[in-house]
C-alpha cells in the first residue's frame, strides 16, 4: 500500500501558498471564494494559488476532472465525502462531550461510519471505472487497505456492538418527580389508541399548523437524561462493558492516505460544482488545448467567471465573446464605447490563462491557451486619482518592473493605462510600450481609448459593440475588427423594450 495524491505527482504536504499578485485585478480572489464556499473545513485555498508549470501536470488534472464529470464517479465521490464529514462530526462529539457513555457511543459511531464509508467506496470507485492514472491509483490503494487486518477488525467489532445497543428497550414510569427505569416488557401503545379516535378529524385539515414539537436536541444531554442512561447501563452491564473496551482498542482508526484523498478531491469537486451550476444556466466550459510555446491562442464563447454568477443571480444575461490571435499578433487592443464590457473582456482573458494553469476546465466552448509562467496586471487605481503625474509615474515604474520579469510565456493585462496624461503623450508612451511587449514575444491585452495604437505591428484590434438597431442597448459584445470610433445615441423607448418586436416577443413567451 503506497500513499497516493490526487493533485500532485507526489503525496507530500506543501507549504501554504500566498495568492498571486494578479488575483485581485482579475477578480480571481472572488472566484476562489465562490468556488470553495461551504468547504472551509478542507482548507482548499492554497491549492488555487499553486499554478502548474508543465503541460503533463495539466493533463493529469484534466483526466481527473474528466473522470469526475462522469455521474457515477462524481456521485460516488460526493457520497464518500458526505460520509467522511459525518465521521468528523461524530469524532468531534466523542472528544467534546462530558458524559463518558455518550463519548464512547459517538466514538463507536464514528468508527463504524468510517468503516462503512471506506468499504463502500472501495467497491464503488472501481465499479465506476475511472480512467485517470490518479484515480486508478486510489482504487488500488483502497483495495489493499480494506483487506488489511486492522481494518477488518475494527469493522467487525464496531458493527456487532452497534447492533447490540440498538436492540435495548427500556421503560420510564414518571410519577410526580420520580422516574423509575426498568426493562421494557411489552406494554401496549396507548398513543395509537388515542390517535385512532382523532384521526378522522385531524386528517381533514389541509394546511394544518404542525404541532409536532421538535425538542431541542443539544449534543450534550441534561443530567436527568444522563441519570437515566446510567440506570439503563446498570440494567444492561455486558453491552456497556464491551463499548468501553472498543474505544481503547481502536483509538487510532483513521488512515492518512484516505484523509488526503478526502481533502484533495474537494479541489475538483468544488470547481466542478460551480462549472455545473453555470452550465445549467446555458454557459459552456471546456478543457483547453495547452501549449508551452505557441501564441496562436483562441477562445470561443468565453465569459468572466467572476461576473457570470452575479449576473445570473440578478437574472441578467451573460454575454459570451470570442477571441483569436494569429502570429505575429501579440497585443490585443480593446477599444470602443464605455460600459461596453471592455475591462470584463480583458479580465476574462487573464482568468482563462490562470485557470488553465491550474489544470481546470475554462469558460468557453473551445480554447487553445498558452501555459503561462506569470500573469501581470496593470489596472487603473481609482483611489490615486488626485495626483495625476504621480499616477503616470507609478504606471511607468510598474511597467518597467513587469517588463523586467516577464518572459515569452507571460501575459500582461493593462486597463486604461496612460489615461492620466495628454493624448499625444499617451500615444507616444503606448507605442513605445507595445513595441517592447511585441519584442518580448509575450501576450498582452490592453483596454484603451487610444485607437491609433491598433496601427502598430503585432497588435490585434477588438471593439466593444453597440446594437445597430438600438444604440441604447449595451451588447457587451467584443469583436475583432478595426476600431471605428462609433458613438451611439440613446433611444428611450427602446431602452424599455417597448418596440413592436420586443413586445411581441415578451408577450408571446
Amino acid at each position: 500500500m503506497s500513499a497516493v495524491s490526487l493533485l500532485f505527482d507526489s503525496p507530500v504536504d506543501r507549504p501554504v501558498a500566498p495568492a498571486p499578485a494578479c488575483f485581485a485585478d482579475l477578480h480571481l480572489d472572488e472566484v476562489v471564494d465562490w468556488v470553495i464556499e461551504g468547504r472551509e473545513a478542507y482548507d482548499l485555498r492554497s491549492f488555487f494559488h499553486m499554478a502548474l508549470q508543465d503541460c503533463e501536470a495539466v493533463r493529469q488534472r484534466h483526466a481527473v476532472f474528466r473522470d469526475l464529470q462522469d455521474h457515477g464517479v462524481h456521485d460516488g465521490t460526493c457520497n464518500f465525502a458526505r460520509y467522511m464529514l459525518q465521521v468528523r462530526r461524530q469524532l468531534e462529539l466523542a472528544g467534546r462531550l462530558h458524559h463518558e457513555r455518550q463519548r464512547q457511543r459517538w466514538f463507536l459511531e464514528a468508527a463504524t461510519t468510517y468503516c462503512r464509508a471506506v468499504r463502500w467506496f472501495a467497491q464503488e470507485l472501481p465499479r465506476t471505472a475511472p480512467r485517470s492514472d490518479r484515480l486508478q491509483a486510489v482504487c488500488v490503494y483502497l483495495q489493499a487497505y480494506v483487506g488489511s487486518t486492522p481494518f477488518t477488525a475494527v469493522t467487525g467489532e464496531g458493527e456487532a456492538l452497534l447492533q447490540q445497543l440498538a436492540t435495548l428497550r427500556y421503560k420510564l414510569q414518571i410519577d410526580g418527580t420520580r422516574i423509575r427505569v426498568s426493562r421494557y416488557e411489552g406494554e401496549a401503545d396507548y398513543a395509537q389508541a388515542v390517535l385512532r379516535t382523532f384521526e378522522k378529524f385531524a386528517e381533514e385539515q389541509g394546511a394544518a399548523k404542525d404541532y409536532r414539537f421538535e425538542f431541542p436536541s443539544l449534543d450534550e444531554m441534561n443530567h436527568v437524561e444522563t441519570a437515566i442512561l446510567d440506570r439503563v447501563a446498570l440494567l444492561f452491564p455486558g453491552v456497556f462493558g464491551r463499548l468501553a473496551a472498543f474505544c481503547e482498542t481502536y483509538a487510532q482508526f483513521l488512515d492518512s492516505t484516505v484523509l488526503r484523498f478526502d481533502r484533495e478531491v474537494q479541489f475538483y469537486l468544488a470547481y466542478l460544482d460551480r462549472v455545473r451550476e453555470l452550465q445549467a444556466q446555458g454557459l459552456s466550459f471546456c478543457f483547453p488545448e495547452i501549449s508551452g510555446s505557441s501564441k496562436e491562442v483562441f477562445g470561443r464563447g468565453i465569459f468572466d467567471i467572476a461576473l457570470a454568477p452575479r449576473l445570473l443571480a440578478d437574472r441578467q444575461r451573460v454575454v459570451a465573446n470570442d477571441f483569436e490571435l494569429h502570429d505575429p499578433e501579440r497585443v490585443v487592443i480593446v477599444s470602443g464605447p464605455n460600459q461596453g464590457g471592455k475591462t470584463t473582456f480583458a479580465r476574462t482573458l487573464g482568468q482563462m490563462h490562470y485557470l488553465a494553469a491550474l489544470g481546470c476546465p475554462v469558460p468557453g466552448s473551445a480554447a487553445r491557451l498558452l501555459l503561462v509562467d506569470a500573469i501581470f496586471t496593470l489596472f487603473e487605481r481609482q483611489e490615486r486619482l488626485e495626483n495625476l503625474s504621480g499616477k503616470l509615474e507609478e504606471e511607468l515604474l510598474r511597467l518597467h518592473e513587469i517588463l523586467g520579469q516577464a518572459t515569452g510565456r507571460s501575459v500582461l493585462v493593462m486597463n486604461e493605462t496612460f489615461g492620466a496624461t495628454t493624448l499625444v503623450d499617451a500615444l507616444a508612451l503606448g507605442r513605445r510600450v507595445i513595441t517592447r511587449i511585441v519584442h518580448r514575444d509575450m501576450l498582452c491585452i490592453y483596454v484603451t481609448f487610444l485607437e491609433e495604437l491598433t496601427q502598430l505591428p503585432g497588435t490585434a484590434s477588438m471593439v466593444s459593440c453597440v446594437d445597430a438597431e438600438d444604440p441604447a442597448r449595451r451588447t457587451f459584445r467584443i469583436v475583432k475588427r478595426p476600431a471605428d470610433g462609433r458613438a451611439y445615441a440613446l433611444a428611450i423607448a427602446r431602452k424599455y423594450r417597448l418596440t413592436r418586436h420586443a413586445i411581441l416577443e415578451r408577450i408571446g413567451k
Partner: protein
Amino acid sequence: MKVWLLYRDRDFDAQAALPPQAEEVAQDLQLQPLFGAMAGGDAFLSEVARRVVLGSLEDPAAITYRQQILDDCLHNQAAVRELYALAIEAIEREKKAWGWLLSRYPEGVLSRSIETLRQLSSLLAALRQLALAQRDRFQSEGWRRLLASLTGELRDEYLHEIDGHVQRLAFRDGLLIRAQLGSGNRGQDYVLCEPPAGSGGWAEWLQGVRERYLGNEPSSYAYEVAERDEAGLRALSELRGQGISAVAAALGRSTDHLLGFFTQLRTELAFYLGCLNLHARLMQWHAAICVPLPVVRTPLPTEAALSAEGVYDVALSLQMTAALVGNRVEADGKGLVLITGANRGGKSTLLRALGQAQLMMQAGMFVAAQSLRASVCRGLFTHFKREEDPKLRQGKFDEELGRMSAIVDCLQRGCLLLLNESFASTNEREGSEIAREIVGALLESGVRVLYVTHLYDLAEGFSRSGSGSVLFLRAERLSDGQRTFRVLPGEPSPTSYGEDLYRRIFGADSEAAAAGAARRTA
C-alpha cells in the same frame, strides 16, 4: 367540512398574493369607495372584498357559481348574517380563553386543545340547528352543499365522543413511556404506553423483597428529581412532553381544523356580506344593477364580446350618493376601443366604469349597469396618466414607459389593458408614434385595449387604416359647447375641447368671450 362558497372545489385563500399590478388597478379604477361601501365600516369585510375583487375568476362557470350563491344571500339576508355572527363568536371565544397562552410545548398544546374543544362544542350544536332550520330556503349548489355537510357531519354522537377523550387525557396516575437508545446513547422514540394491570405498589414491594433477600438482580432503578432542581424539573417536563407529543399534536390539529372551519366560514361569508352591504347602499338611490353574463374567453381579441347598456362608474355613484347616467357600449368583436373627445366629457369615467364592471363580473358580483355581456379576460391591467412625482428622478415620459414596461412583463394573450391618456407626456408626434407601436403590438399579441386618448395623430391613424376591429367612441358635446357626459360612437375629431373647459371655468372673463364682445361692439 369545507366552506367552499367562493370556489366550487377549494377554499378561498385570504393570504394568497394578489395578481401583479393589483394595487395600480385598484388605484386607477378608484375602487376604494367600492370596498368602503362593501365594508360598511368593517375593515375585515373591506379586506376580503379587495382580495376577491382584485383576484378575478377566469372561468364563466366559476362566476355563475358565485352569482347563484349571491342570489341566495340576497333572498336570505337574515340567515346569512346570523351565520356570520356565529362564526365570529367561535373565533372570539377561542381568542378570549386562550389568546394569551401561545405555548408550543406538548403539554401546553394538549391543555389548550382540550379547553378549546370544550368551548366550541356548543357552537357546533348551534351551527347544526341553524343549518337544519334553513336548508330548504337555499337553492344554489354552493349553499346546499355547505348546509348538507353541516347537518350531516356534526352529529351528536360525534360530539360525545370528543368529550370522552377530553376526560381520559388528564393522566392522573402518571405516565408510562417506552424508549430506546439512539445516536450518542440519547433516549429516543418515546412512546406512551398503557400501564399493565398487575403493576403498582404491590408488585414493586414483592420485587424489592426478592432483590434484598433472595439476591435477585434489581429489575428497576429509580431517580428522584429534587424539588429545588429547576433544570431537572424542566428536563422532567420535557420528558413528559416527549411521551405525550404525538397525542398533543393530533389534538392540536383537530382543534385547529375546527377553528379553521369557523375562520374560513367567516372569511368567505365576508365577501357576500360585502355584496349585501353594497346592494343596500345602491338601492338607497335606486341605482341600476344587473347580473352580468360572462362569456368564455376567445383566442383573438377581435372575437371577444363586450356589450353594455347603461354602464356607469359605481365609485362615482357611491361618492355622489346618486344614480348616474350610464353609457351604451357595443364593442363585440372590437379588439381596440379608442375613446376620444372633449376634456371632462366623461371619457375617463366611462373607462373606469368598464374596468369596474369587468372586475365585478369576474368576482361573481352584480355590476353597475342595466345589462352587461362580456368575455372574461385573463387579467385586467391599467396604465393611467399619473401626476408627476416631484421626487421622481426620471422624467415623466421615462416614468410612463417604465410603468408600461412593467405591465408588459405581466401581459399575456387574453388580457385586457385600460390606457388613460398614456404616452401623452411628450410631444404629440412622438407620443403617437410610440403609442401606435405599442398598441399595435399589443393587439397583435392578443391583448384587448381600451384607450382614452387625445393623441389625435394616433386616433386618426387607426381611423385611416380603416380596421373593422376598432371601435371609436367620442365624448359628446352639444353644439352650444355643453357636455352631456355621454360617450357615443364617433370618429376622432381634430380639435380638443380644452378651450370649452377654460371658458366654463373662467366664464365670461375669458379672452374669447372678451374678443366676441369686442366684435359685437364693433
